[in-house]
C-alpha cells in the first residue's frame, strides 16, 4: 500500500507537477527557435528572469485570477464538469506506464510501475475514449454554436482515430506477445542479428555467425520490428491529442476556438493543461511501445548488473541499473516531446475532411495490412530473429 502511494506521489510531483510547467516553457522556446525569435523572457521576479522559466508561474497566476465566465443559457453543472473530464484521463494513463524495469534487492522486488495490469494498453485506450466526453460536453454545455461545431469535430475525430490507434498497435502486440506494458518494455531489452537469416537458411556453416557479422545487431525495439506500426500509431495518438496539425476542432479561422470557446480562467486552463500533459504522456506511451521503454540499447539489464556487481556488489549494481534505466526512459520521452513540438510548429493545420480521409482511407487500410504482414512475418521469420 505505501509502495503504491509513494509511486503515485512520484508521478504527481515529478511528472505532472514538474514536467507540466516545463512543457509550456519548452513549447514557447521551441516555437521561438523555429521562428527566429527570442521567446518568453519578460516575466521577472525582482529582475531575475531565469531564461523565461517564470512564465509558467505567471500563467497560472493569471488564469486563477481571471473572471470565471459562464455563458447565459449554459448547463452549469456540465459546464463545470467538462474540463475535469478532459483532464483526468491523461493523468490516469500515467498509472500503467513503466518508468523502469523490475529490480531485485535481496528478497524484495521493486517494479517501477504503479498498476502492473494484464490489460495495460487497453486501459490507455479506455482512458482516451473517456477523454472524448470532455470535448463533447464542453461544446454542448456552453450553449454556443461555435462550441457545438467544435465538439462535433472533436468527437468525430477522436472516435475515428481511436479505431485506427488500436489497429495500428496489433502488430506490435503480436510481436511482443503481450498487452502488459512492463512486459512489452522488457521484451525490447535485447538485440537481434541483422544477418540471422543467413544462418537460418543455411548460407553459413555451423551454429553461430562469424564474429564480425554477429556484431551487426539492432536493439529489439518496436520501431525496428514495426516501422509502419510506429508511424501509424504516432499519427493516430497525435490526432487524439487535437494539437496542430490535427486541431481542426478548434480551428481559429473557422470556429474561433471550437469547443472551449466559452471557457475562461482556470476552466480554460484545465483544457490547456490537459493538452499539454498529453504531450509527455504520448511520449511515454510511444517510448514504451516502440523505443524500448527503459531499455538501454545493447546493454541488457543482466549485462549491466553482471558487469558492475563484480567490483561494487549486487545491491549497488541493481541500484545503478535502476537509475540508468529511469534516466534512459526520460531521455527517450524528452526526444519524443521535442519531436511533437517540432511537428506542431512545422506543419499547417489539416482541413477537417483531410483529417477524416487520412484516418479512414489511409491509416485504416495500412494498419490492417500491417497486421497481415506482421502475421506472415512471424510465421516465416520465427526463429531467425534471435
Amino acid at each position, binding site marked *: 500500500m505505501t509502495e503504491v502511494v509513494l509511486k503515485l506521489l512520484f508521478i504527481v510531483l515529478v511528472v505532472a507537477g514538474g514536467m507540466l510547467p516545463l512543457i509550456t516553457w519548452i513549447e514557447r522556446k521551441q516555437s521561438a527557435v523555429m521562428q527566429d525569435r527570442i521567446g518568453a523572457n519578460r516575466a521577472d521576479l525582482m529582475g531575475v528572469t531565469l531564461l523565461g522559466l517564470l512564465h509558467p508561474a505567471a500563467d497560472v497566476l493569471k488564469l486563477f485570477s481571471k473572471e470565471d465566465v459562464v455563458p447565459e443559457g449554459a448547463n452549469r453543472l456540465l459546464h463545470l464538469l467538462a474540463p475535469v473530464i478532459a483532464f483526468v484521463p491523461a493523468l490516469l494513463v500515467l498509472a500503467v506506464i513503466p518508468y523502469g524495469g523490475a529490480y531485485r534487492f535481496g528478497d524484495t522486488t521493486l517494479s517501477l510501475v504503479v498498476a502492473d495490469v494484464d*490489460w495495460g494498453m487497453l486501459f490507455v485506450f*479506455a482512458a482516451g*475514449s*473517456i477523454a*472524448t466526453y470532455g470535448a*463533447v460536453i464542453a461544446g454542448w454545455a456552453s450553449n454556443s454554436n461555435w462550441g457545438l461545431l467544435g465538439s462535433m469535430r472533436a*468527437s468525430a475525430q477522436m472516435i475515428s482515430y*481511436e479505431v485506427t490507434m488500436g489497429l495500428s498497435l496489433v502488430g506490435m502486440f503480436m510481436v511482443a506477445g503481450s*498487452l502488459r506494458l512492463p512486459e512489452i518494455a522488457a521484451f525490447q531489452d535485447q538485440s537481434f542479428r541483422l544477418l540471422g537469416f543467413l544462418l537460418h537458411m543455411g548460407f553459413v556453416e555451423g551454429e553461430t555467425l562469424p564474429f564480425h557479422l554477429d556484431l551487426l545487431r539492432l536493439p529489439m525495439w518496436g520501431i525496428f520490428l514495426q516501422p509502419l506500426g510506429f508511424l501509424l500509431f504516432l499519427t493516430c495518438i497525435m490526432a487524439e491529442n487535437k494539437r496542430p496539425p490535427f486541431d481542426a476542432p478548434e480551428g481559429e479561422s473557422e470556429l474561433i476556438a471550437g469547443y472551449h470557446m466559452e471557457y475562461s480562467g482556470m476552466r480554460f486552463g484545465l483544457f490547456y493543461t490537459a493538452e499539454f500533459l498529453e504531450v509527455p504522456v504520448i511520449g511515454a506511451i510511444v517510448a514504451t511501445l516502440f523505443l524500448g521503454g527503459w531499455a538501454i540499447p545493447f546493454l541488457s539489464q543482466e549485462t549491466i548488473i553482471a558487469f558492475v556487481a563484480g567490483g561494487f556488489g549486487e545491491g549497488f549494481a541493481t541500484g545503478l541499473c535502476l537509475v540508468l534505466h529511469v534516466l534512459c526512459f526520460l531521455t527517450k520521452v524528452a526526444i519524443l516531446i521535442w519531436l511533437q513540438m517540432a511537428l506542431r510548429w512545422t506543419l499547417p493545420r489539416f482541413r477537417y475532411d483531410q483529417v477524416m480521409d487520412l484516418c479512414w482511407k489511409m491509416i485504416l487500410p495500412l494498419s490492417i495490412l500491417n497486421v497481415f504482414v506482421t502475421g506472415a512475418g512471424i510465421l516465416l521469420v520465427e526463429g531467425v530473429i534471435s
Partner: protein
Amino acid sequence: MSEVLFYAFAAIAVAGALGMVLNLHNTVAAALSLVGTMVALGGLYVLLEAYLIGVLQILVYAGAIVVVFLFVVMLLNLRRDVFPAGRQWMTKGLALGISLVVLVRFLRLVPGSFGEPAALPEGFGGYREIGARLFTDYVLAFEVTSLLLLAAMVGAVILAKREPSEPDGDPRTPVSRSEAS
C-alpha cells in the same frame, strides 16, 4: 474494500439508469447518465475479475457507442412530436416486452446465486482466454456478429451516399454549368 467499491459502483449504476429514464426533457443529460451507468458496470466487471470485459465495457459502450448516441442527439435535436403517436406506442410496447422477458430470466437466476462463489479457472477474464474461446468455441457467433456489423456498415454508407437533389451539396466537387442545368 471490494464491498465498499461494489456498493459505490452499484449506486452509480442505478442512479445513472434512473437518470437516463427520468430525464424526459433533456436528452443529452439522459445520454450522459447512461455513460455513468456504463462506467460503473465496467467497475463491477473488474470487481468480478472479468478484467477484459470491464475495460471493453468502458472502451466500447461508454467511449464509443454512447458518444455516437450523443452525436445524433445533438445533431438532430429531436423532439417528442417528431415521431408519430402510433410509432411511439409501438416502441414503448416493444421496450416493455423485452424488459419483462429479461426481468423474468433474471428472477429465475436469483435463487441459485447465493452461497460461496465457485473457484475461478486459470486465466479467467484475461484476453488470452477470451480470445481463444472466441475463435474456437464461439467462432460461429463471432462471424455472424461480424456479418451483421458489415451489413449495418454497408447500409450506413448507402444512406450517407444518397445523391443530393440539388447539385450544390459538396463544395469540393465543382459542378460544371452543363451538368447543373
